[in-house]
């Protein structure tokens, strides 16, 4: 081996030795013990990671049972409550027919000049059955105190059949459509004063009819509408046997004597939603209440106007109606048996009312916004020759306080003048509610 070869071998060995000595600590081979130690550490770290993961998704062994039971109990209680409410809701719709008992009641006190003072009470339940979407039964009974007893009367009882969008057929006893006060405003909680106007209530217009009525509305564009009602019914009777009401019409007879029938109608026009003009009439040939003697032709007419306008921080309401009654000339008590006749006159009478009310809505005070102020003027002009009826004029000032939207306290002072008689001025108080 030459010295050159030896030198090369020595350099190579030296290089190898130098590389070996210059290796970094991390590049140094790991011993078996160190490797096993590292594996053990990794296993421990993995176990710790797994434990932390399981703790994040599941509660701890100590707290899990308490939280779960509380939530379950709350859910169970809530579910039970919902079931109860569902059952209660179902009870409001029994079977396939839907029924509602509603109505109104009142209590009043009046003190009338030359006529003492008196408490009074009324109860008017209304029964409504919604038979189908186009069929309904509606009925109202009136319980009133009358002297020493309670009077019960059927105010209306009718089956309504909606034929189409503009026409409903009503059969039975229904409120007279030509008498807008009775049809719309007479319920105790709607009538703003403790008493009712002359002429249109217990006056010269019918309050109800027993027969058949066709009624409906014809929209005439965005806001204008024409409403109508036409009916045929039993006729009233001409009172010939009661000397205190000779020559008047008895509208509260429910059986027609003979074959005669009354025909009537009303048309109302609303050019805008808060204004309505109306005209109505009823024509009939009425028999006498005794059935004796010829009947007489009668004609009742009525014109009405209602309006609502918002202004001066509240709502103003105008209600008005005027009626005329024409009863053909006849001779009453021809033989003088009643101590009055023979009495011959044409019972032509008329009268009406105008009522204006104001209720504040923006007066800045809840108390003031619940008050309503009313003024009503009404009159009855008796027929010339009528021995029992005097011309009468009244002016009533009233204040209402609305406890709720359907419960009201009323107070009024009424100036009442009858021709040839002492005045019947009165203080009137009342409370009325609807349910």
């Amino acid at each position, binding site marked *: 081996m030459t010295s050159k070869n030896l030198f090369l071998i020595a350099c190579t060995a030296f290089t190898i030795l130098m590389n070996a000595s210059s290796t970094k600590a991390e590049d140094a081979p790991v011993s078996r013990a160190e490797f096993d130690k590292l594996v053990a550490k990794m296993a421990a770290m993995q176990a710790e990671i797994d434990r932390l993961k399981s703790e994040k998704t599941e509660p701890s062994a100590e707290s899990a049972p308490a939280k779960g039971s509380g939530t379950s109990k709350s859910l169970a209680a809530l579910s039970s409550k919902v079931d109860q409410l569902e059952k209660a809701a179902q009870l409001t719709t029994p079977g396939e027919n839907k029924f509602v008992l509603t109505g109104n009641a009142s209590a009043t006190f009046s003190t009338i000049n030359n006529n003492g003072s008196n408490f009074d009470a009324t109860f008017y339940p209304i029964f409504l059955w*919604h038979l189908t979407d186009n069929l309904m039964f509606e009925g109202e009974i009136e319980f009133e105190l009358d002297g020493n007893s309670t009077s019960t009367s059927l105010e209306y009882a009718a089956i309504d059949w909606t034929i189409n969008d503009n026409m409903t057929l009503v059969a039975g006893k229904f409120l007279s459509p030509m008498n807008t006060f009775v049809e719309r405003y007479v319920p105790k909680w709607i009538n703003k004063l403790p008493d009712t106007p002359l002429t249109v209530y217990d006056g010269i217009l019918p309050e109800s009819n027993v027969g058949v009525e066709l009624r409906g509305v014809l929209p005439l564009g965005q806001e204008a509408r024409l409403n109508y009602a036409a009916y045929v019914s039993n006729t009233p009777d001409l009172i010939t046997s009661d000397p205190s009401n000779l020559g008047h019409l008895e509208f509260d007879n429910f059986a027609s004597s003979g074959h005669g029938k009354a025909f009537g109608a009303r048309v109302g026009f609303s050019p805008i939603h808060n204004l309505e003009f109306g005209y109505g009439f009823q024509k009939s040939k009425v028999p006498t209440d005794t059935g004796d003697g010829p009947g007489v032709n009668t004609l009742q007419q009525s014109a009405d106007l209602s309006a609502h306008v918002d202004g001066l921080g509240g709502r103003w309401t105008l209600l008005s109606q005027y009626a005329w009654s024409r009863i053909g000339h006849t001779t009453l008590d021809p033989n003088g048996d009643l101590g009055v006749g023979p009495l011959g006159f044409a019972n032509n009478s008329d009268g009406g009312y105008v009522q204006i009310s104001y209720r504040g809505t923006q007066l800045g005070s809840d108390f003031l916004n619940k008050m309503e102020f009313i003024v009503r003027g009404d009159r009855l002009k008796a027929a010339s020759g009528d021995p029992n009826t005097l011309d009468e004029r009244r002016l009533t000032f009233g204040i209402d306080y609305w406890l709720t939207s359907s419960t009201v306290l009323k107070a009024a002072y009424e100036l009442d003048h009858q021709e040839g008689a002492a005045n019947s001025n009165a203080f009137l108080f009342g409370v009325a509610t609807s349910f």
Partner: protein
Amino acid sequence: MKLSMPPSFRPHLVVTLLVGLLCGVAALVPTLGQADPSEKSPKQVNEGPDGAKLWAQTCSQCHNLRPPDTFSGAQWEVIVHHMRVRARLTVAESRAIADFLKGGK
């Protein structure tokens, strides 16, 4: 027996004829007075009567407005049907009012 009355008060005959005409029209043309739906925008056709507006305008003509939570939904259906006849509302108007009252709890 001649019934005397002021000549000016014979419009009842005209009213009879008018009401008879109205009844005929009402029976034959149920949608009289309503605009042709094809002339409305799709939004107008689909909306129908405004129940809240009708409730405020129509119901207040005669009485105070009763809050919607006065009665249950089923009771409102019955009561609004009764008022449909009394206040002479169309079926569509009464349905809109009933839907508004039933929804306004």
